[in-house]
């Protein structure tokens, strides 16, 4: 820095052992950087093992398609020679008979049936029926005739196309299904029939509910944050504790409390009836209203804190200056004060929205089946129907949405700049 204005000396400055000072400095700085990285390394490795790798394998799982390849290996090989239009040639029928005997003995028939049933309804029963009849005794001259005779569905190309479509260990099936699309018999991507299309609605509902929660939180948080910064420190600290107490209280405690408050004989309904607002108890819980109330309650501190910390850095003199220059107080607030708080509002809204779209517990305990968000279906396919493909595909899309929003948040706010308490 200092040498930049002065002319450079003929020979560069060196340390005692003759290494140019610049090189030595660069080396020292590199060492320092390496030391810093070495301090971060344990945590990075820890998160890699407990967090990044499991989530990565979840994402891979969403394109995983092991059943057909594993249970019908020779059929998959033989069906490659088929043109896909008429019926497959004799070797394919022979191969499927052999594979099904093996699958029955290895007890992989159940998984195979479940997987193919997703492609063509009734496949499971077809496989079960066929496997029970095998092996043919005596061995027939034509397996094709024998199988079609056993069940005429083996004479329907659609059942064979399902096998051919799944002749690879990877499939876009689940990811497409998660956005209500599928690969049809001709190999084109088409929309699922309306009676089976549910997931786009679930995604839309998730985003809509999160948006509603974000807007309500903002409307409640902004005036409160403004009050907190305009009060004297002692008072505002006391009120801040009232904000932080629920923040620190277990989510399950709050869910239980809201059920108690909102149930038909609960305090809220009693109060509404005592005030004459309604003459019969309103349904406030186990529906959308209950979910909104509890979610806003849980997420409100995440909106208040960023807005509060931005407002705290704004000098009240700007507002006074605007008013003294003749601005209407409301105009001054809107034109002078509000624009300065936009950063906090943006940070709070993004954070609340990001956290909302992943909500599971609150809708699961306080909502009806029509109020469940994407997370619920991920859990449902994992725990109840054990459909890893659907669970991981829906989870992967939810994660993608979260990550896009989180990247925006990191860029705009800075990931570490969150004020907690």
């Amino acid at each position, binding site marked *: 820095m200092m040498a930049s204005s002065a002319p450079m000396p003929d020979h560069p400055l060196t340390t005692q052992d003759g290494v140019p000072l610049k090189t030595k400095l660069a080396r020292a700085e590199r060492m320092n950087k390496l030391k810093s990285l070495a301090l971060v390394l344990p945590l990075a490795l820890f998160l890699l093992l407990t967090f990044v790798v499991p*989530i990565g394998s979840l994402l891979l799982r969403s394109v995983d398609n092991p059943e057909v390849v594993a249970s019908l290996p020779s059929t998959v090989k033989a069906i490659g020679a088929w043109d896909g239009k008429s019926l497959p040639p004799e070797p394919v029928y022979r191969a499927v008979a052999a594979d099904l005997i093996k699958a029955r003995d290895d007890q992989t028939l159940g998984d195979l049936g479940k997987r193919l049933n997703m492609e063509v309804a009734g496949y499971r029963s077809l496989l079960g029926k066929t496997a029970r009849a095998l092996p043919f005794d005596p061995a027939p001259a034509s397996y094709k005739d024998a199988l079609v005779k056993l069940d005429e569905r083996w004479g329907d190309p659609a059942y064979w196309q399902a096998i051919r479509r799944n002749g690879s260990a990877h499939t876009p099936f689940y990811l497409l299904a998660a956005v209500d699309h599928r690969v049809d018999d001709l190999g084109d991507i088409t929309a699922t029939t309306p009676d089976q299309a549910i997931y786009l609605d679930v995604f839309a509902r998730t985003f809509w509910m999160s948006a509603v929660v974000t807007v309500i939180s903002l409307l409640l948080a902004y005036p409160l944050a403004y009050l907190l910064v305009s009060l004297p420190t002692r008072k505002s600290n006391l009120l801040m504790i009232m904000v932080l107490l629920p923040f620190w209280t277990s989510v399950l405690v709050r869910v239980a409390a809201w059920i108690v408050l909102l149930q038909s004989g609960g305090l809220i309904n009693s109060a509404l009836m005592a005030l004459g607002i309604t003459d019969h108890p309103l349904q406030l819980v186990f529906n959308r209203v209950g979910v909104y109330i509890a979610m806003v309650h849980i997420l409100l501190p995440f909106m208040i804190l960023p807005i509060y910390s931005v407002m705290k850095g704004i000098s009240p003199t700007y507002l006074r200056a605007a008013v003294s220059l003749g601005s209407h107080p409301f105009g001054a607030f809107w034109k002078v004060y509000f624009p300065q708080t936009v950063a906090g509002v943006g940070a709070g809204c993004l954070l609340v929205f990001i956290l909302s779209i*992943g909500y599971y517990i609150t809708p699961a305990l306080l909502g009806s089946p029509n109020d469940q968000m994407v997370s619920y279906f991920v859990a449902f396919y994992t725990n109840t129907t054990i459909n890893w493909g659907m669970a991981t595909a829906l989870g992967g899309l939810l994660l993608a949405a979260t990550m896009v929003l989180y990247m925006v948040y990191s860029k705009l706010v800075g990931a570490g700049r969150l004020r907690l308490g």
Partner: protein
Amino acid sequence: MPNPYMSPIERAWFYLHRLLSGLTLLFLVLPVLVIIPLSFNESSFLVYPLTGFSMRWYHDFFTSAEWMRSLKNSLIVAPAATVLAMVFGTLASVGLTRTEFRGKALLMSLLISPMVVPVVIVGVAGYLFFAPLGMDASYTTLILMHAALGVPFVVITVTATLQGFNHNLVRAAASLGASPLRSFFKVTLPLIAPGVISGALFAFGTSFDEVVVTIFIAGPEQATLPRAMFSGIRENLSPTIAAAATLLIAFSVVMLLTLEWLRGRGERLRTQPAKA
């Protein structure tokens, strides 16, 4: 108080603002306040008005093998997860703040990401990954995953504390012959202790309140207190849950007051530099 120069409309706005803020605060604390009296109520229904004082729900809580086991599990898992998160998180925060390097913002985003990734995804991913290794339904896995969820809070609070940290102090210690380890424990750690402790409190709170990951990766043997509450709320919302909830609220109050005390102490230290 509204100042005397306000026009009537401004005055109306002033009171409306106070009223709205007051209602919002009431909304925030109401559920916490409502559940406490019900836990001391003798009726087995969770409704007002109260009928009489009774400690029977606390008795139920402390004599139920299931609740006690879940309490014990929470008291095993949360401290262990906190220690892990605290150690890894503090080291990383020191590394992140002592130099500038390329990709730092990205690395920071990665370290904070367990806070924003939907917990269901973390739970399902953990289950799919650890179950084939025979590591599901174990305390170790539960502790590791809870630690991962607590890490972002430690990183956030400790890096925030380190922003105001004078790195020349470490250089001074080194020039006086202290080893890096010694200067960390004698110089850095005492100064950033408030940040480390609040981070640890957050990590503890995260684990102590965590239910979704626990649903997926813990077996019945490892069920924690929130897990037991989840089943309880789902099956039958009994006053015993209100008793458990009250105990948890008491616990949160202790944590919150500790945190506020730390914050106040930190602010005093910052605003009133030691007299030379």
